[in-house]
């Protein structure tokens, strides 16, 4: 018995596998650790409520604590910082108010996606939260292309915890009441006792929740205080992947890459209205033309009939003709069926289109559906 397909965890060619601030904490909670993005990371936890499906369901129903300290926390500041970031990304950062955040993408000169990230205006600085596997390239890219007068700091002294799920606000609110005031995509500085935190109401599961930047030396105490509450349990990378897949959110290096662009990746919402009018981001002409004319291929969501999962690399067919490829997929615990994301030629991308996916010589019937697969339940401002 051996794996025939990639596991969630990947081994990168990094010089050494490093340990995160909560390494011992994860092991004490029964985590199975795997190498991911250059770090030892918990993929799932032991115990009756452990395992990917149980952890996934717990997050949808209660509150799950994720350690995402492998991600890069970068701050940039200086005169003209918003405009400098706008030269590298298609977001309208000049108009982004303090305490607000946006999803964006670092683009190369061809419009390829170097990384996707969250950008927060933290008042005196912008904070970028980037993918763990790409953070060193991102830092290199930013240093190369940001003007010299912009200061860049990589905060490896900070851990990053995510608390996700419908009971997150109640749980975190007991420690930090100010979080109750935040709505989706807002952030604030806050104190937990004498520990300074930066908290955003955001995440990558489709649920309400928070990401909490905490000094590494206080991360264990904060994790302990959170899981001491009945509604909070630690959740591994495995469930993080199944949750984000159901939420229709792309995973960098799989669903998006340098070979995909914001329009084909169905992420054009991240190209702000003003930037569509004024351009000025990398490959703006190419991207805006593609936006106007429609892309040749497009990222779509697929519901698969039966129980067999289709994973990254599986070919997608319309009749006898291959029209695309799966970029990530697996069993969706909340839906109770396999789902997939992939790219197909645009003429086959319409909702309801019947396609087939080849898995181990079998053709699985699949239907294009609107993403997210599971509705988002973000805490938005009431009208």
């Amino acid at each position, binding site marked *: *018995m*051996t*794996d*025939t*397909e*990639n*596991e*969630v965890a990947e081994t990168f060619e990094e010089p050494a596998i490093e340990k995160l601030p909560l390494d011992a904490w994860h092991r004490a909670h029964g985590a199975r650790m795997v190498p991911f993005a250059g770090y030892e990371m918990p*993929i*799932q936890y032991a115990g009756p409520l452990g*395992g*990917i*499906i*149980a952890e996934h369901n717990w997050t949808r129903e209660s509150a799950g604590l994720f350690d995402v300290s492998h991600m890069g926390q970068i701050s940039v500041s200086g005169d003209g910082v918003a405009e400098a970031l706008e030269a590298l990304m298609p977001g309208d950062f000049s108009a982004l108010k303090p305490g607000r955040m946006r999803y964006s993408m670092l683009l190369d000169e061809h419009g390829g996606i170097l990384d996707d990230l969250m950008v927060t205006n933290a008042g005196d600085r912008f904070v970028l939260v980037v993918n763990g596997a790409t953070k060193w390239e991102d830092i290199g890219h930013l240093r190369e292309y940001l003007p010299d007068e912009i200061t860049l700091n990589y905060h490896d002294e900070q851990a990053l915890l995510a608390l996700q799920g419908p009971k997150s606000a109640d749980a975190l609110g007991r420690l930090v009441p100010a979080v109750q005031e935040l709505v989706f995509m807002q952030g604030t500085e806050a104190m937990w006792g004498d520990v300074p935190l930066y908290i955003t109401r955001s995440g990558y599961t489709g649920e309400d929740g928070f990401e909490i930047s905490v000094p590494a030396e206080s991360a264990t105490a904060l994790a302990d205080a959170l899981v001491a509450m009945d509604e909070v349990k630690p959740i591994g990378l*495995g469930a993080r992947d*199944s949750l984000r897949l159901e939420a229709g959110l792309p995973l960098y290096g799989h669903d998006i890459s340098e070979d995909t662009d914001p329009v084909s990746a169905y992420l054009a919402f991240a190209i702000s209205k003003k930037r569509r009018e004024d351009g000025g981001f990398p490959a703006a002409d190419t991207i805006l033309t593609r936006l106007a004319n429609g892309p040749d291929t497009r990222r779509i969501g697929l519901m698969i009939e*039966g*129980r*067999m*999962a289709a*994973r990254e690399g599986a070919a997608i067919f319309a009749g006898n003709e291959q029209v695309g490829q799966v970029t990530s997929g*697996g*069993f969706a*615990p909340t839906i109770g069926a*396999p789902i997939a994301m992939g790219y197909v030629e645009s003429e086959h991308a319409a909702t309801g289109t019947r396609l087939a996916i080849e898995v*181990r010589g079998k053709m699985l019937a699949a239907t294009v559906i609107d993403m997210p697969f599971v509705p988002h339940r973000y805490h938005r401002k009431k009208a």
Partner: protein
Amino acid sequence: MTTYFTKDHEWISVDGPMGTVGITDYAQEQLGDITFVELPGEGDKVGKGDSVSVVDSVKAASDVYTPVSGEVREANAALNDEPELVNTKPESDGWLFKVLLSDASELDGLMDEAAYKAYVDSL
């Protein structure tokens, strides 16, 4: 009835000419939540070491190799509705298929329970 084990973490329980094959508790633990089992067809002729079944977990799909040659006589239809039996009862109700052995001497190269336990402890 004697049970043998492979280094690929399959077990085969042999009763006369018939062997029942599954994956071990160690294997299901490593795979995590199992969501689908692709079973061999009844009547399939299989050769020792062939990939005859695939166990799909949330994480990955894994081949199951038959420990012996022979003819598949039955697949565990209960797994179509309850693939999680491979997690909960891997070495009993979560069996995968029954095979009519064509060469009982192939069992000689397999491990007994004590040898398999020592092998797993060494991993």
